[in-house]
């Protein structure tokens, strides 16, 4: 009986073993292999002693941090206001809909918008500031990455605020709190779980957006993702690529641990 039910999930276990455990182990093994296939610690030592790799990692971190902060600043108020609209779920869907547009097409749109004679520069020229080089700069990478990540922050924050029991906000109003006080001491603390999921959903992918750095930032921006892609697909140095992959996995677990849902009571 129970065994039959267990049999059902055999394909799932097999598949997960083959495509989660084995690949991660392979990545780990590969990071100990040199270009000639021999066992070596060279990748790891050269990663941790090379200023180039370390600054790249630091910069990658900084970009991801900035992208996360900017998405949060834009999305939090938007999510808060959305929960107060009529037909809020429909409006949420409208706001999230651009996610279903292919990410490369959205990036491609910015090649036009930010180009030398594109929309933004036409606007700047009209305002008398004059055209600025925007495309293939660090700023353009930040703008496009923020644009792409906004929905992934908006959604969890919206869900968290939407889940707040309305009687709590009503009680706070009854007890004489004004709107700002209600927000500060009721809504904001209860929405933090959504912010944490949002940070997780934005920060980790921001480390690895290699297609954006290539399309939008030229070669100005090098993130961990860009470096991994380059080592695997361009220079064919899989050992070094794997080492950086392991670094990225470690960062991923660190971020997950930091943004983990606290036990009940911790945040209340």
């Amino acid at each position: 009986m129970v065994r039959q039910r267990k049999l059902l999930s055999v394909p799932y276990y097999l598949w997960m073993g083959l495509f989660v455990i084995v690949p991660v182990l392979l990545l780990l093994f590969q990071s100990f292999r040199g270009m000639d296939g021999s066992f070596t610690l060279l990748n790891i030592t050269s990663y941790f002693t090379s200023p180039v790799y370390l600054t790249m990692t630091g910069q990658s971190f900084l970009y991801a941090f900035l992208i996360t902060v900017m998405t949060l600043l834009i999305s939090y108020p938007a999510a808060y206001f959305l929960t107060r609209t009529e037909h809020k779920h429909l409006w949420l869907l409208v706001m999230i809909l651009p996610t279903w547009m292919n990410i490369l097409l959205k990036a491609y749109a910015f090649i036009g918008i930010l180009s030398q004679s594109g929309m933004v520069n036409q606007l700047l020229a009209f305002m008398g500031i004059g055209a600025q080089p925007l495309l293939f700069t660090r700023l353009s990478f930040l703008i496009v990455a923020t644009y792409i990540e906004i929905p992934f922050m908006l959604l969890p924050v919206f869900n968290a605020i939407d889940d707040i029991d309305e009687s709590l906000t009503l009680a706070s109003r009854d007890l004489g709190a004004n709107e700002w006080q209600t927000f500060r001491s009721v809504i904001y603390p209860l929405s933090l779980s959504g912010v944490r999921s949002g940070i997780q959903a934005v920060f980790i992918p921001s480390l690895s957006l290699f297609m954006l750095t290539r399309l939008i930032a030229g070669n100005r921006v090098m993130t961990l993702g860009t470096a991994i892609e380059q080592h695997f697909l361009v220079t064919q140095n899989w050992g070094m690529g794997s080492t950086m992959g392991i670094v990225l996995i470690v960062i991923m677990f660190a971020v997950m641990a930091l943004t983990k849902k606290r036990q009940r009571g911790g945040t209340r």
Partner: protein
Amino acid sequence: MVKNTKLSSVYLFVVFVLLYLPIFYLIYYSFNAAGTMNQFDGFTLEHYTALAEDTRLLTIALDTVRVALISSLAATVIGTMGAIGIYFSRKRRTQGLLMSLNNILLVSPDVIIGASFLLLFTLVGFRLGFYSVLFSHIAFSIPIVVLMVLPRLEEMNPHMITAARDLGASQWQVLKEIILPSISSGILAGFFMAFTYSIDDFAVTFFVTGNGFATLSVEIYSRARQGVSLEINALSTILFLVAMAIVVGYYFIQKQQRTRKKILAVDPTNHEKAVMP
């Protein structure tokens, strides 16, 4: 319920405009006779006719849909069975372990998934192409399906199964008559999410695709790197309309189910990343 002030409505409107601006920018210039994305010189449909005659691109589009359909169907079957397995695994610790494995693949950055799958395929000696892309898509879609199906299983009334067993239902009948109907909305949501993920994926596909096979994302990437071509704009108009139709259609199917069965259906907006613990 507090209503929005004028200022907050304006803010929402600005965010809304910013989110849609790039998409409509693309669509607007797809009708541009000048052939650039800056100066609108006159209306034309020539980029659409060029698109219709571009057999290479059409083949790639068909391949993309083929991969997405097969992979999401396979992932739905394997993922649903996996979710049922996780649900019935008695030990809490096993459940937790399985869920965290499931989550690892969900949160992993695309480059990691792509690079590690590339290592796997190379080690086994599997030729890169249609099948390597298909298997990778199945692999990263399964956790999404599990994530969508598992909450429905937990909402199911377990006494229904006991009752059915008492009334003499076989294991197969329990599955067919009790379990599957109560989790159907989760299965549908899982299939839908898996499908859209497969269609949209770029990074993983880029790593495991080799030379002979491409999906739309990969093709758009290589063309966009060569510069502006309004054929891509025409393509984005069509893709945007298709995506809109699918999402809106799905939203109303779910809404109907919700009101009819009073089951809390999964929002199509429940994005994989957003529901992570």
